[in-house]
């Protein structure tokens, strides 16, 4: 195992975060705060409690997931896309590193960064609403699992993208709608049929439901199913990345 290489990539990627501190950390925190002000405090005060949870507290897990997903994807995709774009990827490709080590460096850094953001958002939320965490270990596990899984997914997007537009397309056109429709702002039980059944095809539903369960002990779908679905998606990403390195897709000719 080339630990020095993993460390080098990790430090390099984290350095980018510190260099762009405003965009990296301040902006997701600011945008989440705005959600809390608008939905949690302003509108939320006129919405009744859902399953006994005040609306402001109810949306915390969903909002956290929203940031976690988009941050993980954008960090990881940019992290690998940028060296491809500038040409510096030659150094990584010619170095004595295995694909696993490359992933540990890039995905590890992207996931760390989104975890930091997740924790900061959680702390920010405290300023607006009271909440409790019923199953802290599960909460941390979901947080970790989601950050890693979607950083892997972001890595795939970063490899696939051959221009800056493609880098944005998946997060904008797929992830954001899926998160909004995945029960970030409502319980899917509030939906009439057939929308409720259709929603079950949205993988983000399982992430948010499981995550919300770790906070309040309430869930739209069983927590085992949530965990299972997250692991399935993670396995899919790992399989895709394995294929990328085996074939050299968009990395090597």
């Amino acid at each position: 195992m080339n630990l020095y290489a993993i460390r080098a990539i990790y430090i390099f990627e984290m350095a980018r975060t510190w260099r762009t501190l405003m965009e990296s950390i301040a902006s997701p925190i600011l945008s989440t705060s705005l959600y809390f002000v608008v939905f949690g405090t302003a509108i939320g005060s006129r919405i009744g409690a859902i399953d006994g949870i005040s609306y402001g507290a109810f949306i915390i897990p969903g909002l956290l997931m929203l940031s976690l997903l988009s941050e993980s994807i954008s960090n990881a995709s940019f992290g690998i896309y940028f060296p491809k774009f500038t040409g510096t990827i030659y150094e990584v490709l010619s170095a004595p590193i295995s694909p696993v080590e490359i992933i540990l460096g890039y995905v590890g850094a992207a996931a760390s960064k989104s975890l930091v953001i997740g924790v900061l958002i959680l702390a920010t939320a405290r300023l607006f609403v009271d909440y409790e965490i019923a199953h802290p270990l599960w909460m941390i596990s979901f947080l970790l699992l989601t950050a890693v899984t979607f950083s892997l997914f972001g890595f795939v997007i970063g490899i696939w993208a051959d221009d800056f537009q493609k880098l944005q397309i998946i997060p904008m056109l797929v992830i954001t709608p899926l998160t909004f429709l995945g029960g970030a702002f409502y319980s899917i039980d509030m939906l009439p049929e057939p929308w409720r059944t259709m929603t079950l095809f949205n993988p983000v539903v399982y992430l948010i439901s499981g995550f919300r369960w770790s906070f309040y002990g309430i869930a739209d779908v069983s927590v085992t199913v949530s965990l299972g679905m997250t692991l399935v998606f993670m396995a899919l990403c790992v399989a895709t990345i394995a294929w990328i390195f085996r074939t050299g897709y968009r990395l090597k000719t």
Partner: protein
Amino acid sequence: MQPIITIKGINKTYTSGFQALKDIDLEIRRGEIFALLGPNGAGKTTLISLICGIVTPSSGTVHVAGHDIVSDYRAARSTIGLVPQEVATAAFETVAATMQFSRGLFGKPRNPAYIETVLRELSLWDKRHAKIVTLSGGMKRRLMIAKALSHEPQILFLDEPTAGVDVELRRDMWAMVRRLRDSGVTIILTTHYIEEAEEMADRIGVINQGRIIVIEDKAVLMNKLGKKQLALTLQNPLERLPEELAGHRLELSADGNEIVYTFDSQAEHTGIPELLRQLGKHGIDFKDLHSSQSSLEEIFVNLVRPRP
């Protein structure tokens, strides 16, 4: 001595169907400067990229320092430093940070003293805290070399190292490459500047349309393929050459003031004494003479020129 790089039967066909390398066999000797010459699109960069692990071979094997580049890629790649043709750097990083990154990638622990030596050698030490984006073009190029040297490689690939570099910097780079060779590093460079190969290389390989057409010691190559000429400036212009001299490979200039004699530099008898005797016999006096040898450039152009 065991060659440091052994390439056997390498072929590379891209998915587009374009065959960039055809049956390449090549051995690079430890400690030499090997220049790979070839016109644009000949396959120079593909060959280098393939040895370094950036391009996957379609068939054939490459061993670097005794290690197969596919099955034992870690050991093989650890010995190589690559300076690619295009300057590609992480613009917003500092010089010191990017050096540390490169060294780490190749699995080496920190060694500030060594990094300092490399940066000083390449006149970049004063810029170690500067962001790369603020460096001049020449400095960026030197930084590319510094990065390639950051992990103390045994082999250094320089892909067109002096393309677009001013004369002074080019001379500096040549001096640096020689110092590296003297310290035991094997150097493989590709270049468009034939004078560069002529100046630097111990051996020369010429690649054209994906095939290596010549591999030779520079001196031998220049001797073998080069031709020598003797030019005589005449005292009085001639209208035509005497018939007896026609058997010699002689040419009379249009104004009749100069005779040019072409001879084989490798032949035991150059034929010059005989020619001079003949000229004396015919009363042809000359006031000046000089001999010249064809440059590597001429040899190269002759080699890669499409044959009718």
